[in-house]
């Protein structure tokens, strides 16, 4: 654990994340001056509660992006899982909530496994493949729901409490997110399958020479991404006690935006949990902050978009200066 802390501290101190953290701090200060009301524990808690779903999606999305892919179908997976869980729950209220959680994960994992199969083994371009499954899964969600909506009174207490209950004063959905961050921090940093994800993303050819089975790893990354989206789908319905087939529309883009903001390289090979945590915090604070200022809220999308562009520009410039340095070193040899 000590080691983990150290590496977290280190990555915070090195380059890119420092910039993000400073930006984050400045933002908080500005927010504090303009809207002191933002600074209450409960408003922070609400903010994170509402953003937990994005964070889960972003963790899965990061795995896929590190392999060099992308998954546009996560929001549809979330919808499908939510619809299946909610509809079965309303018909079988006696079943304990944990069953629906597991079912949500399973539904998501199956969706993800299908993505992983067509990308990893059938070699489809990830963006095209998941664009297709984005519509397919959303279509399934519609079929499963029959166009029906589920409203708060139809949700059992156990189901809703799974997300909105509190342990030590913190919402369960936040605990789940925190546990996921820790688990995936360990997975990506300390286990063979986790490290293989980086290996295939940084250099597919080298990975092949090193005996790594690229299709397997790609399949795994998509499956996990799907499973997290499935979990997020169940928790979404539990958190808001509402469900319809179109829920979460557009969340895949927010997940991608968080990854980019958190320094995950869209070409693969680079990205870390702490980056995604910072990216997600940034995104939620910005969103929350904007929503508090009446005049600004119409600008919400535009401001979020601008921040993504700025983050990508920072990535490009840091990448360019690194390349220049390598060329200079090589120049010394000629």
């Amino acid at each position, binding site marked *: 654990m000590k080691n983990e802390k150290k590496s977290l501290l280190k990555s915070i101190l090195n380059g890119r994340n420092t910039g993000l953290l400073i930006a984050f701090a400045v933002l908080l200060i500005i927010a504090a001056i303009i809207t002191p009301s933002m600074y209450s524990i409960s408003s922070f808690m609400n903010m994170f509660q509402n953003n937990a779903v994005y964070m889960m999606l972003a963790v899965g999305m990061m795995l896929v992006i590190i392999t060099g892919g992308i998954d546009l179908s996560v929001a549809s997976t979330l919808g499908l899982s939510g619809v299946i869980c909610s509809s079965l729950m309303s018909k079988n209220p006696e079943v304990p909530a944990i069953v629906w959680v597991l079912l949500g994960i399973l539904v998501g994992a199956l969706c993800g496994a299908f993505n992983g199969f067509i990308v990893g083994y059938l070699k489809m371009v990830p963006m095209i493949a998941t664009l297709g499954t984005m519509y397919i899964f959303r279509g399934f969600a519609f079929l499963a729901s029959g166009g029906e909506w589920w409203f708060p009174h139809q949700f059992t207490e156990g189901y809703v409490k799974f997300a909105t209950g509190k342990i030590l004063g913190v919402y369960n959905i936040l605990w789940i997110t925190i546990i996921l961050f820790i688990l995936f921090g360990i997975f990506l940093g300390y286990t063979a399958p986790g490290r293989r994800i980086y290996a295939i993303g940084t*250099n597919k050819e080298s990975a092949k020479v090193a005996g790594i089975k690229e299709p397997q790893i790609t399949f795994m990354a998509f499956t996990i991404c799907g499973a997290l989206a499935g979990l997020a789908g169940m928790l979404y319905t539990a958190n808001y006690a509402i469900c319809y087939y179109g829920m979460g529309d557009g969340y895949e883009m927010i997940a991608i935006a968080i990854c980019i903001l958190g320094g995950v390289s869209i070409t693969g*090979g680079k990205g870390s949990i702490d980056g995604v945590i910072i990216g997600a915090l940034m995104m939620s604070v910005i969103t929350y902050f904007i929503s508090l200022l009446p005049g600004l809220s119409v600008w919400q999308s535009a401001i979020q978009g601008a921040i993504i562009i700025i983050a990508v520009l920072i990535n490009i410039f840091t990448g360019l200066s690194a390349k220049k340095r390598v060329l200079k070193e090589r120049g010394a040899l000629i």
Partner: protein
Amino acid sequence: MSNYVLELKDVVKTFGGVTALNGVHFQLKRGEIHALMGENGAGKSTFIKVITGVHQPDSGVMLLEGERISLRSTSDSAKLGIAAIYQHVTAFPDLSVTENIFMGQELKNRAGLYNWKLMNRKAVELIEPLSKEIDVMKPMGSLSVAQQQLVEIAKALSRDARILIMDEPTASLTKTECEELYLIAERLRDDGVSIIFITHKFEDMYRLATRVTVFRDSQYIGTWDVDKISNQKLITEMVNRELDQMYPHKTAKIGEVVLEIDKLNKEGYFKDISFQVRKGEIVALTGLVGAGRTEVCQTIFGIMKADGGSVKLNNEAVSIKSPIDALNWGIGLLPEDRQIQGLINELPIYQNVSSATITKFQKKNILIEEKEIENAIDLCQKINLKAKDISAPPSSLSGGNQQKVVFAKLLTCDLKVLIMDEPTKGIDVGAKYSIYEIMNELACKGYGIIMVSSEMPEVLGMADHIVVMKSGRVTGSFERKGATQEMILEASLKQHNGTED
């Protein structure tokens, strides 16, 4: 017990229709450094990939310590103690040095998690005897090429390699770095590691190897004791090829200088490149792959931007910032990879021909297709293009005819200088001749031609003047008369003096 650690007999490997290894033999003694030499494309790289299990041979026998083995993957060869350091370092640039070393054999704690602390410590232990300057926590991509190679060696050692294959390890090292590498190789040999050392440099071979094996044209030529074979004989064995009637008689009259390159520089790629091209002259730019020839051409053509130096056309300094500029000044480029850079396979042949000069066929901004087709037919006849249908895509043609389409495209433009990057690459012998004829005709018409080529017979057969590059520098410049393969090879292996630190 066999005398040899590793023995290969009659190994054949083909890719599609191309034979990469044609019945090669190889014998490696215990604790020897064995040099493997040959020209580009002689089959050395494929050979290593067979030994390491990346490729499976079509036929042939492989014996390790006298026992027959067959390798399905690199993990098979790794288990048997065979490790390779590839020419293009096959590392994971975004991952740390430690992780690169332990990739595939990570150390884990009792919970099954990576033990980074232990791995970092072991990595330091492995790296320290090789170099004191490498930080194992840094990403591999931040190291110099020489340092990356040392990491690869450390990686091989961490796997208890008995057989170590080094594919041109000294190709991009300075003299001092080479010397350090020699010492390390000798120390490994003394520790009982058998080393296959692939190299283009005679220096490496004399300094290190006790025996040398030569491949040529995918075939095994022979094995000699290093002290029993002369330099001259070795070169002859490496390049020995008949310069028969493969090249048309050159008829062009050489005129005044049309293109002058003076001290062209590009940091990290090449330095102080100067040469001239005259009207009707074919200048060959040769050297080993990676010497910087393609980069020089791309810079002249405006794809890359030079850091210094000048390009003069007809004695007038010109500034070329883009390929459009280059074409407007009258410089055309026939790119190395015609599939990717030369042709658009989705478009019909005639549109490919007109694609560089599309405005020529416009009338009030509207494209006149008849004019395009007319022009294409006219040009294709001139260069003897064998196509059934000019509106078919270029992919319907053979390699040689595809190349002719790229030629036709260039000829539509009003050009003075043609740069041809490996114009006959991947084209069969018969079709090569017709490409040479076209080149000859173009020279007769007064074009100045720069031909980048790695094939020495082609260079000697076609060029009027030969410029040899090595590691981003010009290391030789010869008139065709009196130039020999040996002279070119020597220049392309020469270390440039005065810049090593």
